[in-house]
């Protein structure tokens, strides 16, 4: 990167902008890597006109950080406010870097999902690793002990000239998550991997984290009193990661390798930092807390002071540096990893510094809050920034033009298949369906000794997939936290609105499947360039979809993030959400897994097959337009889901698996993997053509194994929402319609196809 220097003197530099023309302002924004529009530059100009002076480089850089798309949500905020923020508010315990819902009387769950797309596209290993590091900090910021890391990955399938190969990106991302997550000692238990040429070369790395906190110990990030000391703790500050947020707020260009934004992260700096921060919190020594992420100190100090309505001062020379020659503006906006900012009462500063030292964590007092509304920064005695905190942290908001393109919905009717067995095998070995063990088994999912349901369950040595993971955060209680995701870029590509609803549906389905009651969501919204009206139209459709489902379920989105500008190369990604959901398992003993449990049990379908085949795996294999995307009705979802939960809690149920990619045929196949137990089903009661009956992907649907003596009770709870379809059996999975055989496949071949590519 070309560091923009006015002259060689290290301290305060002036950036003359007063009276400059629009063209000149735009040039300054470019040269300094500010990413600010001319409107925004003029707004800064008029502020300094009133101040009667030119801004310093530190000031201009600080404002650019705060006003970046990444930090300010300037293109999305209007819509998020309208559709997302208002839902289920009474269920939100607190909000901040992560959001909190209530697990039980004493405990809250802190969770968030976030994208690390742009950094991962430039350097997959470091991008993914620091993504994990960043999301851990967000959860820790609330005072919570992280209990799980999650990752939903979207990989391209085609090489694009000028960009790294898909294989290189994939192995880099997976290794990055592995090396960071394993070293930091938080289990990586849930996620997903999706392959599509949508993501060539725009790889998406969405990482989530879930933590728990004693409700009395939730930490706020606001400082509302003068005289509170600011302590920076953890890693030292270096030139790394400068202008990361500005990069994430623009379209990536071919061959762009801005080295100063590349970081690999240091999990063994983070690991003791987590312990130290939690110990300080446990002892009641933290007044306010925030992590240093995008925008570095600049964003964090500004927001901590502004949200509490005070001002403050910071002495930059007190910040511990990796490189001595850093300029003040670099120190102020550096995004070096593994740092937290603790606000501490004066009389408790020493205790906090001692705790840090006892964990071998470096820390330093760098400033304090003051009465008033000014933020003042000094470097070696000179003032380098003196700004109104309100001005700094209130960016322009945009309601960008949007356009909803009417798409024609076409559905082709395929020829009736002659070989169902071959189709099923192809589906099971599809990269999007078959086991992800080649990646996930490189992640430690049992560290902390609290993983009740991990990513794979069943007979040791032949485990199958699970729908959600369950963590028991407190060994003295029966309560569990269920964690899962939903997303379907194939649906969203065709219909962002229904795709949004389907993502909520999938998340809820997965959470119900393990016997948990959904409590809330975090959403990571992936999209293209918001300055394109068509994309803005998709974006609005997507959030409307999320809204309509979540509102009907009365479940809040407690946190999330927006990632625009994912459109390098010729292809852009669909506009779609990845949702992280958490649920409450009242008693872990009652949680269930998808592997079939015994021969001779009844198999029921909750839900009905559909003719909406848009984006379905079956039609993707046929390479035909499938028409409308499967429709999720939240009212139905709520009724079926919560009734199913009732049945699970009363122990009627031996195993459950939700219906998703590949329909009930794939769902039942997956239930045989971990169990070695087969099933025979009759699709006559389901109506529809056989291929639609077993391969369609109806929303709000599950396959359920019911204990022999509990059928009556089960049917009573589920009522008309369930249909008896067959029984479990030995060695084979067979499908018939009355007398006519549709499919007959042995379990070994299911196992082999599903495990393809692993071992």
């Amino acid at each position: 990167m070309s560091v923009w220097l006015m002259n060689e003197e290290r301290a305060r530099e002036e950036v003359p902008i007063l009276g400059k023309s629009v063209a000149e302002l735009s040039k300054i924004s470019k040269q300094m890597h500010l990413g600010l529009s001319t409107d925004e530059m003029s707004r800064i100009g008029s502020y300094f006109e009133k101040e009667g002076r030119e801004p310093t480089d530190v000031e201009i850089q600080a404002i650019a950080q705060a006003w970046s798309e990444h930090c300010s949500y300037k293109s999305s905020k209007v819509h998020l406010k309208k559709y997302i923020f208002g839902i289920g508010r009474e269920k939100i315990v607190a909000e901040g870097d992560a959001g909190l819902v209530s697990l039980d009387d004493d405990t809250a769950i802190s969770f968030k999902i976030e994208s690390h797309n742009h950094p991962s596209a430039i350097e997959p290993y470091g991008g993914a690793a620091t993504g994990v590091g960043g999301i851990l900090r967000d959860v820790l910021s609330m005072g919570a002990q992280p209990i799980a890391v999650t990752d939903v990955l979207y990989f391209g399938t085609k090489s694009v000239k000028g960009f790294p190969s898909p294989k290189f990106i994939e192995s880099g991302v997976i290794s990055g998550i592995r090396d960071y997550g394993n070293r930091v000692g938080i289990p990586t238990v849930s996620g997903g991997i999706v392959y599509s040429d949508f993501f060539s070369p725009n790889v998406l790395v969405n990482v989530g984290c879930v933590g728990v906190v004693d409700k009395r110990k939730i930490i706020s990030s606001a400082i509302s009193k003068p005289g509170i000391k600011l302590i920076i703790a953890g890693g030292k500050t270096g030139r790394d990661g400068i202008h990361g947020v500005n990069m994430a707020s623009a379209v990536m260009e071919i061959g762009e390798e801005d080295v100063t934004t590349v970081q690999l992260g240091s999990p063994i700096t983070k690991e003791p930092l987590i312990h130290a921060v939690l110990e300080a919190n446990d002892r009641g020594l933290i007044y306010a807390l925030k992590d240093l992420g995008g925008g570095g100190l600049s964003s964090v100090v500004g927001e901590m002071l502004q949200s509490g309505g005070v001002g403050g001062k910071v002495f930059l020379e007190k910040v511990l540096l990796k490189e001595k020659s850093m300029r003040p503006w670099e120190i102020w906006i550096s995004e070096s990893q593994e740092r937290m900012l603790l606000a501490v009462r004066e009389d408790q500063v020493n205790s906090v510094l001692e705790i840090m030292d006892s964990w071998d964590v470096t820390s330093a007092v760098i400033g304090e809050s003051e009465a008033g509304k000014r933020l003042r920064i000094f470097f070696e005695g000179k003032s380098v920034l003196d700004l109104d905190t309100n001005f700094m942290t209130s960016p322009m908001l945009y309601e960008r033009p949007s356009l909803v393109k009417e798409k024609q919905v076409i559905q082709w009717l395929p020829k009736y298949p002659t070989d169902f067995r071959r189709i099923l095998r192809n589906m099971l070995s599809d990269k999007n369906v078959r086991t992800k063990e080649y990646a996930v088994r490189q992640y430690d999912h049992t560290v902390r000794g609290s993983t009740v349901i991990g990513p794979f369950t069943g007979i040791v040595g032949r485990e199958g997939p699970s729908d959600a993971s369950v963590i028991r955060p407190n060994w003295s209680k029966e309560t569990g936290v269920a964690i899962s995701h939903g997303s379907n870029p194939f649906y969203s590509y065709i219909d962002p609105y229904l795709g949004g609803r389907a993502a909520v549906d999938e998340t809820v389905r997965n959470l119900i499947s393990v016997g948990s009651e959904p409590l809330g969501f975090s959403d990571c919204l992936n999209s293209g360039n918001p300055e394109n009206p068509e994309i803005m139209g998709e974006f609005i459709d997507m959030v409307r979809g999320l809204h309509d489902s979540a509102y009907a379920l009365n479940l809040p989105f407690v946190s999330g993030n927006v990632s625009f500008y994912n459109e390098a190369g010729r292809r852009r990604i669909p506009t779609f959400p990845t949702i992280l959901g958490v649920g409450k398992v009242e008693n872990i003993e009652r949680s269930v897994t998808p592997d079939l449990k015994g021969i001779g049990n009844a198999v029921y379908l909750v839900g009905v097959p559909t003719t909406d085949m848009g984006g379905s795996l079956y039609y993707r294999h046929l390479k035909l337009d499938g028409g409308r995307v499967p429709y999720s009705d939240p009212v139905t979802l709520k009724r079926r889901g919560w009734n199913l939960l009732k049945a699970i809690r009363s122990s009627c149920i031996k195993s459950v698996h939700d219906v998703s990619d590949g329909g009930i045929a794939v769902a039942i196949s997956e239930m045989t993997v971990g169990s070695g137990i087969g099933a025979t089903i009759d699709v006559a009661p389901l109506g529809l053509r056989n291929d639609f009956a077993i391969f369609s992907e109806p929303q709000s649907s599950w396959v359920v194994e019911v204990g022999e003596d509990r059928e009556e009770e089960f049917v009573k709870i589920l009522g008309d929402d369930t249909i008896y379809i067959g029984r479990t059996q030995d060695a084979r999975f067979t499908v018939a319609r009355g007398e006519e055989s549709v499919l007959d496949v042995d379990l070994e071949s299911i196992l082999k196809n599903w495990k393809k590519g692993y071992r």
Partner: protein
Amino acid sequence: MNREINVAILTMEGTNNEEEAYLSFRFSGTSPEIVHLKKLENRDKKLSNYDILFFPGGFSAGDYVRAGAVMAARLKSSLMKDLEEFVESGKPVMGSCNGFQVLVELGLIPNVNGDYALEAALAPNISNRFEARTVYLKVDKGNCLFLREFEDNEIIKLPIAHSEGRFVPKDKEILDKIIKSRMNVISYVDSRGRQAKYPWNPNGSERNIAGVCNKRGNVLGVMPHPERVFYRYTESDWTRENSKTGMGNPFFRGAVQFLREKY
């Protein structure tokens, strides 16, 4: 012993299984304490004040050089005598995963010749990957105090999560002595209890060795993680089984019983 049993769980940056080890000891009726290596180095704390010493898993110092190497080097340079005394007093010492690697690097395991020389190493897995899954193990308990609650030849299941777990003895002589003295107390087996190759043997360990106990029976190193399955609910197949307690539980019970009887 009627008084409290004090357990030191040793930690430094990157060790990260101290929490589950702490809880496993606490729920076994002892008084565990997480002790930072620094505090032992600067003599704030003394090893001899503890009854059990536990080396947890994780990635001490990132495992960057070699798993366990940095932690072992630091211990060797400042605390080797205390460690030897602790071991020679007969008190229980256990390490799992990274802890096992540290014990081997310290020469506390296998120590067939009794001189704390390096006699083995834990090399990178033959698969060249990190492996996180449940494995079948056979317990040949010998005189190992941590294993006294198991049946002899019992088949158990424990989670593993490591990339450097391939047990390599220095030479044939050392290996023979290990086998002859029945120090290879835990071995990887297949679902029917037979010695088998990858994936049953997840790392390519010589003779499928998963755990080694010293001759005296008071120092145990294991690659799998007993502390992660203290309760049955964290076994990966618990929804299909009706065990009463977790398979890691007896390791801790064994050590506690031993101390209560002996002291």
